């Protein structure tokens, strides 16, 4: 099993976009699989509860993907694969999706998983999941027979396949959860009966989650592991210490480049940046476009030209983060390379500022920058750098710290900011994670990660909405490319870098979770070499 190690090392060294195959190519080594063992995962996320149908976010998604099966799953590319649904097809007009379920699948209490459970779960997600755009176009769910699920949509909704995958729409047992209680506060969310490869036996908030192999899992012979323990650590340092001491074997979602480099050098761990194409995490500088100075396009452009992305990715992030130039990450299938990227050009920045009446001869531009607290390298360090970089262009920037996340969220969502560093996830499809930042209709005071820039361009709205209902992938890509070109031209946000999330694991871990959803995907194929 040195192959996957060599692959991921090479990937890191060359930065090439190869290595889509780690997850999918492994059945070749199926004869090598050793069953059993306990995998301890170090985690910094603290989930509220484990029901991902009503609670989005990384913290719940990682355990929920083990506890609950979904209709579809994804490998390392954006191609859907069968999971609880063995096959699926769209109607000719792309508005009806029919899925056939795996036969003999059971919940952890032994009850069969039927189409009724599936459509009930989807309906729960439609009504309660915070990402309401996921299932908004759905008109009706149908279960003509226990093995068939029918999803009827108002219009084509190409994102639906991704929506039906890991981390977003788990299949819940209706007979357990449909008990008349509000599902969002149902106590059963703490230790839910699930449908996936592992059943949860303990959940101590802030401490650990214990997941035990479910012997009746519908995929023959899987999962390979006996047990997964998700241990929560206070900070990345103690998580890494746990890896080094052998207390934990895998640590996903690590973004401290200092620690990643240290583990890489130690040579006893494998480090990969695969498994984050679905999350699509972007670190960016957002402008309050209603600020009197920043409402001027030239000023926003000047800011962008004055910031050197290379300094951020190479010096601040030890060369481990990739530059971001548009709303989606480079691994997204909708990535469009031909957008205005505002490469570093200090003279251009000064000229634009002078044109707008600032700098020599004019007023000194004074601005404030906020950042999300407790995210050192990605947020605070970049904000400090921006202060220094903009000073060279004659802009006086003060960095305002927030003591904790709710303070920052309140400031930004009530528009009490000039510009702020921010971190927003793509969540696999622009309909889920991109539109919300740019649509005029999503300027909603009090909601963090809505369109807090208060940016509004009807052309962008039209393009994003059209792309959302375009079933033809090539046309859809083109519409997004047009939208991204317009957004980068209007520059409500200056994209800085992709968050360098890495997964670190010991040599014993085989088939590490490197699908587009990474650790937010089922880990039924992970095994430990003894």
């Amino acid at each position, binding site marked *: 099993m040195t192959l996957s190690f060599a692959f991921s090392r090479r990937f890191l060294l060359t930065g090439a976009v190869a290595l889509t195959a780690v997850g999918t190519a492994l059945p070749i080594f199926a004869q090598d699989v050793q069953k059993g063992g*306990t995998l*301890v995962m170090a985690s910094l996320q*603290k989930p*509220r*509860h484990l029901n991902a149908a009503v*609670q*989005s*976010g*990384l*913290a719940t998604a990682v355990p929920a993907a083990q506890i609950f099966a979904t209709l579809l799953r994804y490998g390392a590319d954006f191609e859907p694969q069968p999971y609880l649904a063995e096959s699926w097809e769209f109607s000719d007009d792309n508005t009806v999706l029919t899925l056939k379920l795996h036969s003999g699948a059971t919940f952890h209490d032994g009850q069969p998983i039927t189409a009724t459970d599936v459509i009930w779960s989807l309906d729960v997600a439609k009504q*309660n999941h*915070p*990402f*309401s755009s996921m299932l908004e176009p759905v008109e009706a769910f149908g279960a003509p027979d226990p093995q068939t699920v029918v999803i009827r949509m108002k219009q084509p909704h190409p994102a639906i396949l991704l929506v039906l995958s890991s981390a977003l729409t788990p299949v819940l047992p209706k007979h357990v959860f449909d008990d008349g209680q*509000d599902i*969002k*506060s149902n*106590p059963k*969310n*703490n230790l839910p009966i699930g449908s996936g490869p592992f059943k949860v036996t303990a959940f*101590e*908030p*802030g*401490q*650990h989650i*214990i997941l035990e192999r479910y012997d009746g899992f519908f995929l023959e012979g899987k999962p390979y592991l006996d047990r997964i*323990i998700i*241990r*929560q*650590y*206070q900070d990345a340092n*103690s998580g890494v*210490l*746990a890896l*080094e*001491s052998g*207390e934990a074997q895998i640590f996903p979602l690590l973004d401290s480049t200092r620690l990643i480099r240290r583990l890489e050098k130690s040579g006893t761990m494998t480090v990969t940046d695969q498994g984050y194409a679905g999350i699509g995490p972007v670190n960016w500088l957002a402008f309050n476009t209603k600020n009197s100075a920043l409402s001027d396009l030239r000023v926003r452009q000047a800011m962008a030209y004055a910031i050197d992305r290379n300094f951020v990715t190479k010096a601040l992030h030890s060369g481990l983060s990739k530059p971001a130039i548009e709303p989606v990450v480079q691994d997204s299938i909708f990535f469009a390379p031909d957008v205005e990227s505002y490469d570093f050009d200090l003279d251009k920045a000064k000229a634009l500022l002078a044109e707008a009446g600032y700098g020599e001869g004019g007023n000194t531009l004074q601005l404030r920058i906020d950042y999300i607290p407790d995210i050192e390298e990605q947020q605070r360090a970049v904000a400090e750098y921006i202060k220094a970089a903009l000073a060279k262009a004659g802009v006086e920037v003060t960095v305002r710290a927030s003591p*904790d*996340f*709710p*303070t*920052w*969220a*309140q*400031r930004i*969502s009530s528009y009490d900011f000039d510009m702020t560093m921010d971190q*927003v*996830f793509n*969540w696999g499809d622009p309909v889920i994670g991109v539109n*919300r930042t740019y649509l005029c209709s999503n300027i*909603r005071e*009090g*909601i*963090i*990660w*809505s369109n807090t820039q208060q940016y509004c361009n009807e052309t962008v709205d039209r393009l994003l909405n059209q792309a959302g209902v375009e079933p033809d992938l090539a046309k859809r890509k083109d519409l997004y490319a047009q939208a991204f070109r317009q957004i980068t031209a209007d520059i409500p946000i200056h994209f800085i870098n992709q968050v360098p999330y890495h997964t670190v694991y010991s040599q014993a871990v085989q088939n590490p979770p490197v699908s587009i959803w990474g650790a937010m995907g089922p880990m039924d194929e992970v095994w430990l070499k003894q």
Partner: protein
Amino acid sequence: MYQRITKQLLYAVSLILAVLVLNFLLIQLAPGDPAEVIAGEMGGANAEVMAAIRAQYGLDKPLLTQLGLYLGHALQGDLGTSYFYNRPVVELILSRLGPTLLLVATALGFALIVGTRLGMLASRNPRGIASALVTVLSLIGYSAPVFWTGLMLVILFGATIPLFPIAGMIDVVKQGGPLVRALDIAHHLVLPALTLGLVYLAQYSRLTRASMLEVLGADYIRTARAKGVSERQVFNRHAFRNALLPVVTVAGMQFGAIISGAVLVETVFSWPGLGTLAFQSILARDYPTVLGILFFSTLIVIIANLLTDFVSRLLDPRLAGGR
């Protein structure tokens, strides 16, 4: 006697009430509310979800109504439901109370026993090497911040000489009977208890040394020596017992401070106690949990003070008869 108990109980109840009301109002001053935290946790949310969260926890009601409702429930023993973890606060706190009490009691016990012994040792020859050593050590122990000591111990025993586990209270991977479990917990307890105990050990050794020196100069010690009591007896029975009084008083008074010190130590060592929970709950704007923890720690401090009173009377019968 009964009158005194009633008076103390009355004090206790009004103290708890004041703590609850004051903290309820204080925490409202922090910007942001639980709905924002939950939305952050979820990677974003829409207006309907935010409104639903606020309605679910009654955050849309006027502040005084919220306070009234909270106090009403609290007086009936219902501390509410955690906004963040969606579990009854009492259940959440009780699951964390044990670890905190274990940590604090071990640290305090260690500090008291070792600290007073060291203090005695130092007082035997106030100008000797042992005394100087104890003074220097206690000065370092006293002035080093708890989190720094903790981090240094983590680096030393977690990375350089991996003798003790550096995080958590149990090894969840390890299976075994109650004895294995108890040993496992004791193993995990060493570093956090040492970190928390060192500060107080320093104080108690200094206090004991000073107090011993004072007592040893008293007339009754000279009398004891004159009537031929052995030096050992003089030290252990006559002097130490009296010298212990200020130490016990200080230790009792410090119980509250130790609990707040535990917040730092628990955070450094991921010890699953009230401190970690308090820290996380404040960040999550989980008002009921924060208030519940404050309620419980007020209760603990009150009980500790009563106990101090009791122990002081045991040590010095003069106190019992006086009032």
